[in-house]
């Protein structure tokens, strides 16, 4: 491999990296803006509307203000780890984007053009899980180094929540891996393409896996209804009580990057990525078709992001024992039963459509069982 070949390999990578580094802060700033607007719409308010047309420059004003604030380092913290923690949080959140395709990359890479930093990696889904679970370090180091009781309890809760929801998340994607016969996210998306563009989506024959995956992914992003690590009424700010200025922003940039990553993963694994009725499903060298496919993917991702933001105002927060109970008593047994059905059906080569029926039945049965459980709990409590 001579220098010319290395350079030919290098510049498309540098362009892809540049795109991500430019887009992530903008997306982070405007995600807060969209969230405030959506919250205002839900609560019948106007939301930010003073800075620029429709309040569009509010995000930029916030960014400048935070950049110029006094950066307080409290006297009781472990300074090095205290400074390192937001860095780790942001790094892991952004590093997971390396294996995330934001568009279909043709086989010849368009003479260099590509829509993913690391194309053709066979273990990209595994790397995604490995990296995103590292972000627990950012939170627990931040909580520990803050030397504040609220921070410490928030961090410990967050760590327990993280590792608990990691398991159902990993179990639920096994079905997706099975169909594609690969852990490469690009191959998984390609395997969901079909003639009409919609019947090949993994959603249709693994609805239960989608529900489990989305719930656990939501818990991993630390957002409502799973935001126990930072619930204001109990723990002030949780792990970021002692953080202000840019360090607080790095934590929140990491959180919004997580939301975007999770939305991308849900779309790519279950909602068919860039496949849609009327859009050509094969990856061609035509710029128009590529742009159309990217548009389809981005619209789907935006839909999932808005759904996550609206969910915040639709559901109350879990109590901590309910949160751990949902992971260990609800999602993990369900995911394992789903996996047993999956293994039997796939190994015997049976049709896949009964799996969809079975997973819906499992979901309904679990709902009835938990309702019966809570009723008997209420009965016992009322007797004593």
């Amino acid at each position, binding site marked *: 491999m001579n220098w010319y070949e*290395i350079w030919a390999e290098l510049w498309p990578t540098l362009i892809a990296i540049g795109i991500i580094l430019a887009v992530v802060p903008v997306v982070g700033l405007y995600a807060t803006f969209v969230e405030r607007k959506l919250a205002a719409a839900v609560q019948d308010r106007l939301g930010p509307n003073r800075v620029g047309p429709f309040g569009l420059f509010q995000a930029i004003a916030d960014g400048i203000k935070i950049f110029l604030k006094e950066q307080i380092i409290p006297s009781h913290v472990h300074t090095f780890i205290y400074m390192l923690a937001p*860095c780790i949080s942001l*790094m892991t959140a952004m*590093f997971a984007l390396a294996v995330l395709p934001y568009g279909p990359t043709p086989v010849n890479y368009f003479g260099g053009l590509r829509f993913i930093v690391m194309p053709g990696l066979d273990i990209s889904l595994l790397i995604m899980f490995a990296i995103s679970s590292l972000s627990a370090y950012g939170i627990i180091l931040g909580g520990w180094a803050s030397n504040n009781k609220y921070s410490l309890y928030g961090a410990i809760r967050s760590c327990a929540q993280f590792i608990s929801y990691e398991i159902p998340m990993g179990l639920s994607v096994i079905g997706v891996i099975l169909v594609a*016969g690969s852990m490469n996210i690009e191959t998984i998306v390609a395997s969901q393409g079909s003639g009409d563009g919609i019947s090949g989506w993994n959603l249709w024959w693994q609805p239960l896996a989608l529900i489990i995956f989305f719930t656990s992914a939501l818990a991993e992003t630390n957002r409502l209804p799973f935001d126990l690590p930072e619930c204001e009424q109990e723990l*002030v700010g949780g792990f970021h009580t002692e953080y202000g200025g*840019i360090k607080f922003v790095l934590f929140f940039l990491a959180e919004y990057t997580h939301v975007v990553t999770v939305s991308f993963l849900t779309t790519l694994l279950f909602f068919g990525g860039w496949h849609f009725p009327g859009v050509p499903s094969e990856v061609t060298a035509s710029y128009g078709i590529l742009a159309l496919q990217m548009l389809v993917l981005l619209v789907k991702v935006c839909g999932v992001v808005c759904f996550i933001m609206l969910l915040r105002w639709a559901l109350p927060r879990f109590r901590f024992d309910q949160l751990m109970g949902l992971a260990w008593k609800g999602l993990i*047994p369900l995911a*394992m039963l789903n996996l047993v059905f999956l293994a039997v059906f796939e190994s015997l080569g049976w049709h896949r459509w009964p799996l969809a029926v079975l997973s819906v039945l499992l979901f309904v049965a679990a709902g009835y069982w938990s309702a019966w459980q809570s009723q008997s709990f209420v009965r016992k409590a009322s007797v004593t």
Partner: protein
Amino acid sequence: MHGLQAMSYLPILLYLIAVIGFAAVSLILPHLVAPRKPTTIKGMPYESGMDPVGDTRKPLDVKFYLIAILFLVFDIELLFLYPWAVALNNPEGIPAEYRIPVLWVLLVLLATLGLAYIVAVKKGIFEWRRK
């Protein structure tokens, strides 16, 4: 060959360096620009306006430790399942005549996991509220 394989992971290394640089610059730059007026009150831990009592380095509930151990058990079993999931429908993966024996192995693996789960439930690891 080894050199070539290592080369194909170059984008990830470059991206890692870029991300570390991005995080470091965006952390350090505001610290150089911003005004600094540290006072004693600003340096205190925020515990809802009360003066902090005692130290933070305290023992925690042993439940968190048990959850961490259980996580290891489940996560390692999960890692054994991934190669099976990749190989089952792959044309270069498991041959058709081995599918049923592999299914039995898998079911035994899941049964041991289920057994461990039942033991954990009976031990009351998932009960967070004291009766």
